C-alpha cells in the first residue's frame, strides 16, 4: 500500500466520506446513546473494533465467498464479532454494558459495518481493509464523542461524567464540572437534542467544505493543488 493510498483511505474515513456526517449511516444507536461523551465513546469503541475485525475477516475470505451468498456470510461474520464484543463488555465493563444495553447487539444492524464490508473489504486487500475499518470507525467515534460531549455540556454542564465506567475507579476524577448549575438545557438531553446536535455538526462540516472550495476558486495560482471532489450524494 502506497503512502498516497493510505492518506486517501484515512481522509475518506475521517472527513470526506465520514459515515456519520456524510453517509448518515448508523443513526439509530448514535442518536440514542449520545446523551454524554462517555456513552458515545463506549459505543464508538465497540463499533470501531467490530468494524476493523469484520473488514479484516471479510477481506481475508473474499476470494472464497460465492457472490450469491456473500451477504449472509458477511452478516454472520459481523454478528460473531458483535456477540464477542457484547460478552467481553458484559464481563469487564458491566455497568456501561448495562447502560448501552440493546445498542451493543444492535451494532450487527449498523449499516456502516455491512456497508464497509460490501463496498470496501470485499474488493480490497487485507491491510487496506484494516486501515479503512480503522479510519471509518474513528470518524464515526469522533462524531459520537463530540455529539455526546455537546449534549452533556448543554444539559448537565459537565464533560466526561461517569468516566469510571470505561476507565475504572481512578477516572472518577476526570469529570469536568464546567458550570455550577446541574440542570442546563434540558432539550439537549432529550431525543430532539440529538437530532438538532447532529444537524449542527453536519452543517458545520458543510460550511468548512464550502469555505475551502471558495478559497480554492478565489486563488487562481492554486490551480495545481489537488482539488477535492465534492462529496457524492
Amino acid at each position: 500500500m502506497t503512502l498516497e493510498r493510505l492518506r486517501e483511505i484515512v481522509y475518506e474515513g475521517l472527513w470526506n466520506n465520514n459515515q456519520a456526517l456524510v453517509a448518515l449511516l448508523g443513526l439509530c444507536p448514535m442518536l440514542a446513546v449520545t446523551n454524554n461523551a462517555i456513552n458515545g465513546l463506549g459505543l464508538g469503541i465497540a463499533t470501531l473494533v467490530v468494524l476493523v475485525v469484520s473488514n479484516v475477516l471479510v477481506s481475508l475470505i473474499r476470494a472464497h465467498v460465492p457472490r450469491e451468498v456473500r451477504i449472509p456470510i458477511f452478516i454472520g461474520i459481523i454478528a460473531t464479532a458483535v456477540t464477542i464484543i457484547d460478552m467481553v463488555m458484559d464481563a469487564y465493563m458491566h455497568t456501561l454494558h448495562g447502560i448501552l444495553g440493546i445498542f451493543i447487539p444492535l451494532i450487527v444492524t449498523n449499516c456502516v459495518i455491512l456497508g464497509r464490508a460490501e463496498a470496501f473489504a470485499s474488493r480490497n486487500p487485507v491491510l487496506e481493509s484494516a486501515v479503512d475499518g480503522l479510519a471509518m470507525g474513528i470518524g464515526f467515534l469522533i462524531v459520537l464523542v463530540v455529539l455526546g460531549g455537546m449534549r452533556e455540556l448543554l444539559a448537565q454542564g459537565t464533560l466526561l461524567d461517569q468516566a469510571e465506567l470505561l476507565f475504572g475507579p481512578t477516572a472518577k476524577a476526570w469529570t469536568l464540572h464546567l458550570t455550577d448549575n446541574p440542570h442546563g438545557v434540558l432539550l439537549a438531553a432529550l431525543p430532539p437534542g440529538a437530532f438538532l446536535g447532529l444537524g449542527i455538526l453536519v452543517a458545520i462540516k458543510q460550511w468548512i467544505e464550502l469555505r475551502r472550495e471558495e478559497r480554492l476558486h478565489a486563488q487562481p495560482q492554486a490551480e495545481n493543488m489537488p482539488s477535492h471532489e465534492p462529496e457524492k450524494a
Partner: protein
Amino acid sequence: MSTPREELLRHIRQATGKMVLFIGLAIIVLVAVRAWLEPKIEQARVETLKSQLNETIPQTAYDNDLLQDTVMIRAPELLGTDKPVTLYRARKNGKPVGVVFETIAPDGYSGDIHLLVGIYADGRIAGVRVLEHRETPGLGDKIELKKSPWILSFDGKRLTPENEAQWHVKKDGGIFDQFTGATITPRAVVKAVKKALAFYQQYQDRIWQP
C-alpha cells in the same frame, strides 16, 4: 460434459457448503468464547449486585453471604410485579438484621421505576436506591442519589397506623418533598416504598422462616 442444469446444481451445492462452513466456524468460535467468558460475566453480575445490596444495608451490619441466603415471594399487589421477587436476607451471628429486595413503582411518569429497598428486621427503612428508570432527565431523575440526596429521606422511616397519612409527597399532605416541575415521579416512589414496608409487615413471618 455437464449440462447447464448439472452446472447450476453444482454451483448451488458449493455455495451452500461454503455458507454452512463459515457459519459453522462462527458458531464454534462463539461457543468457545462464551465458555471462556461465562464465569467472568457471572462474577461481574455478582459484584454489581453485591455493591447495590451494600448501598441499602451497610456491609458492616451483617456477616452472612446475602446472595446465598434468599427467599422468593410473590406479591403482585405490593411489589408491582407478577413474578416472584428474590429477597436477600442479612443476618449477624445468625440473627435477622434486615432484608433487601427489588420492588417496582408502576406509575412513574414514563414507565416502571425499579427500586431496591432495604428494610431492617424491626421494620425501619435501611436504604432505598433506584435501579432503573426512564424519568425525564433534569426533572424526575432527582430520585437518583447521583443527582439529589432526596432518596435518603426514607432512611430510618417506619410505617405505622398513626403515621400512614404522612406517607405522601408534601403536595398531597405528606412529609416527602416533591421536585419543582415533577410531582408524579416522587409520588410514585413514595407509594412504592410505603407498599414495600407494608409488604414486610404482612410477610415478616414468611420472610424469616428458615
